Structure formats: structure tokens, C-alpha cells
């Protein structure tokens, strides 16, 4: 009798690449990341004078001084009017490359251009960055490495078996990367008793500096205990539960709910949006499979 081990670990991480893979899935991922990157950057443009301008709230001299010598910074290339021209040029280049990436025009080149511009802006905006920018950076980096523009691209190209294999490897990389990050987050939390007795969640949700929409803090303490334990469990067990049919529907709904709460109550709107988007895009074939199974079971029950 052989033990039932989740499929990726059975042989190696590239085993059974067809499992949970739908046609064009990595191309949907490319479109989602490009669209999200445009959305995220537009949020910076809304507060251009405060966040992006050379004499903004944290001016370029500060970010330049805080950067390593090898990190790109527009302040190194010019100041005053020249700096503004360079900034507008970089903004145009970033948005144009993201639109081209989303449309599937010369995807690898555009991904590299977008990633380069993103690195440039991440040096300029360093004090304002948080987790979402880290995820976005890694996803753009994946798009630089893996082929992502063939069947859903503006100049539509032949989709060969080899290319399909490469896109399946790419998707598997994103899936395992996400598993590692969730496991990492859960592993950090499970070492802290305050996460399991609800105190940490209560205190973090009542942190006034991050409060976006105020959550009533006079809830029953068990609500915080159960929510804290649920967050730790779904993050820590994400790499395991995602392979259990029907259980993964509840896992992903919980994950989406958790990110929605983070977005609504803590104001981390881009963070919540990106992780909901990525979770849906990389797991939707498995979710659809389970959904069809549940529907079939319900139909059978009613017929009998």
C-alpha cells in the first residue's frame, strides 16, 4: 500500500504538469500582472506631487542617498528640468511597456522594460513600498524569464508543444512560489502565541495608523481567537490543502476573504487586489473542476 503524497512531491516539482493547467493560463497570468501593474502605478500618479515628483514629500536627494551605487536613480542623470523630462520619459516608458505586455506584443522584451522601470521607481519610492511591490517585482521577473506571449498575443503565434511545456513550468513556478510565501507567513505567525489567542489580530486591526474602514473593536474575543487561528491554519497549510479536492474551494474562499479584509479594513487595497487576482488566475482550473463536481453531485442527489 503506497502512502498518498500530494502530487508535486511524489516525484519532483515538475511531475504531472498537466494537472490543473488550462489552455492559455500563463497568458492570463501575464495579462493580469500587466493590468494590475498599470492600476498600481496609476495610484502613484494620482498623488504625483506627494509621491513621485523630485521635490515630493521624500525628495530625490534622500532616496538617492539611500540607494546602493549600482541601483538606478534619475538623480544621477540630471537635476531640475532634465530630471523632470527623465521622469516623464520613465513614466511613459513604464506604462507603454505594460500596455504592450498586456496586449502580448514582444512580451519578453516588454516585461524586461517594465521590470527595469519598476526597479527604477522602486528605488525612488523605496520608503513607500510594502509587500505588494515585492510580489509585483517577483511576478514581473517571472515574465522576463518565461515565454508568455503566443496564443493570446497581438501578433498571434504558433503554440508548439515545447512552448506549452515551458508555460506549464512557469505556472508551476508561480504556484510553488505562492505556496512558499503563504507557508512563510504562517510559519512566522504560528511561532507567536499572540496570534493563536487573538490578541495580535485585535491589536493590529485596532492600529489607528492603518485603519481605513473602522472595524468595531468590541467584538466577542472568540471572534479574534477563531479568526487568528484560521489565518494561521490557512497560511501554514496552504501548500497541502490546495491539493485536496473540494477542500481547496474553502481554502481559496478563505484566502480571498482574508485579503478582502486586509484591503477594506487596513487600506492595503493594491495588496489585497493582487493576491486575490493571482490566486484566482493560477488555481481557477482546479476550482472549476471542483465546482463542476459539486454541481454534478447536487444534480444526482435531486434526480435520485
Amino acid at each position, binding site marked *: 500500500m503506497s502512502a498518498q503524497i500530494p502530487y508535486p512531491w511524489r516525484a519532483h516539482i515538475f511531475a504531472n504538469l498537466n494537472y490543473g493547467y488550462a489552455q492559455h493560463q500563463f497568458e492570463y497570468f501575464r495579462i493580469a500582472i500587466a493590468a494590475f501593474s498599470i492600476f498600481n502605478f496609476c495610484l*502613484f500618479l494620482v498623488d504625483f506631487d506627494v509621491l513621485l515628483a523630485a521635490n515630493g514629500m521624500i*525628495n530625490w536627494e534622500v532616496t538617492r542617498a539611500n540607494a546602493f551605487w549600482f541601483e538606478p536613480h534619475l538623480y544621477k542623470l540630471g537635476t531640475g528640468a532634465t530630471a523632470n523630462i527623465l521622469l516623464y520619459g520613465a513614466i511613459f516608458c513604464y506604462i507603454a511597456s505594460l500596455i504592450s505586455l498586456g496586449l502580448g506584443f514582444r512580451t519578453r522584451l516588454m516585461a524586461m522594460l517594465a521590470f527595469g522601470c519598476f526597479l527604477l521607481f522602486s528605488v525612488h519610492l523605496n520608503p513607500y513600498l510594502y509587500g505588494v511591490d515585492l510580489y509585483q517585482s517577483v511576478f514581473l521577473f517571472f515574465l522576463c524569464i518565461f515565454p508568455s506571449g503566443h496564443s493570446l498575443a497581438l501578433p498571434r503565434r504558433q503554440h508548439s508543444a515545447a512552448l506549452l511545456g515551458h508555460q506549464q*513550468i512557469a505556472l508551476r513556478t508561480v504556484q510553488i512560489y505562492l505556496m*512558499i510565501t503563504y507557508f512563510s*507567513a504562517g510559519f512566522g505567525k504560528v511561532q507567536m502565541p499572540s496570534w493563536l489567542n487573538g490578541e495580535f489580530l*485585535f491589536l493590529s486591526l485596532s492600529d489607528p495608523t492603518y485603519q481605513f474602514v473602522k472595524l468595531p473593536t468590541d467584538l466577542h474575543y472568540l471572534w479574534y481567537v477563531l479568526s487568528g487561528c484560521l489565518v494561521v491554519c490557512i497560511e501554514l497549510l496552504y501548500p497541502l490543502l490546495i491539493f485536496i479536492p473540494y477542500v481547496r474551494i474553502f481554502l481559496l474562499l478563505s484566502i480571498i476573504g482574508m485579503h478582502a479584509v486586509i484591503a477594506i479594513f487596513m487600506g*492595503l487595497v493594491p495588496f489585497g487586489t493582487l493576491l486575490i487576482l493571482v490566486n484566482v488566475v493560477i488555481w481557477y482550473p482546479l476550482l472549476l473542476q471542483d465546482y463542476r463536481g459539486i454541481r454534478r453531485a447536487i444534480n444526482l442527489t435531486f434526480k435520485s
Partner: protein
Amino acid sequence: MTVVYKTFTILFLALQLLVVLKAVPSQVNFRSYFAEIATSVLCSITKVNHLYNFFTDPDKTGSYSYTSNELVLYQVEKDHVDQKVLTRDGSLKTMVTACNQARVSHLQSIATRDTALYNAVVRSQALYCISKYRTYPLLSVEVFHHRCEAIRKGNRFEKVEYTDTVYSNLFSIIAY
């Protein structure tokens, strides 16, 4: 090409896993200065050296703390002092639109992590604020560190805070 992609994936994910499990030795003896620089470049680009538990404290003490600040502009009008408060709930939320509030909400926490950087950041903030509201020539900055505890009373949690002032300064622009 398949081998290249698979190799990349294994290396990238293995590095991520090593960082997450804290299996990388804290002191790696690089043979040369350039090896160290190359590693820094690689880490900056790939972000493989980052942990993903953004929501937790790195020392795993389980305690919760946050940093708030209060920025107030002052002007003298006739015989009274007029003030304009730039912060709300201890952060500079009011300076940006709703979706960007989280981006500025943690700026003051630099004061507890990197004093040199915060000195530069707060001067830049002062320059920006005084330039924006030209009629207010004086800016007062105070940064507070809040250590929090949750105490259970009946079926409810109650928050107890211990607040320390970690930074305070006054800024003005002198035009010659």
C-alpha cells in the same frame, strides 16, 4: 530550453525556501568585494532575500507595537498662534488619496529602525509641507512609539498602550 527553465525554477525556489526557513548562514564569507556586490545586485533584482511575514514582528516576541506621528504647522496671526494639523490617527493619511494611505502610514516607523534615514526623511517632509502651505512657516514633528497589550475583560479585549516619544523637532525654512 526546458532544462534552463527547470534549473532556474529549482534555484529560485530553493533560495526562497532557504530564506524562509532561515537556513542561510547569517555571515557568508565572500572571497572578494565583487562577489558581495554581485550578490547584492542579484538579491535586489530577484528579491530572494525577503521574508513574507509582513504582518509579524521579526523577533517573534508576540508583542504588538506601532509608531505614530504628529505633524503640526504654525503661523502667527496678529496676536494669536494659528495651527494646521497635517496628521490624522497618527499618520500622514490626509496628504494622499484613500488608496495610498497605507503607503504613507508607516513612514514614521523609520524613526525607530534607521535614525539617520529618518532625519533625512523628516527634513524632506518639513521642506515639502512648509513649501506647500507657505503661510505656515513653522513645523512641529513628534514621533511616538506605542507598545500595546490586549487585556481580556469578560468577553471583550481591551487595549492598553505605553507611549514613548522617540523624536521631536521643530523645522522652519530661513530664506536669505
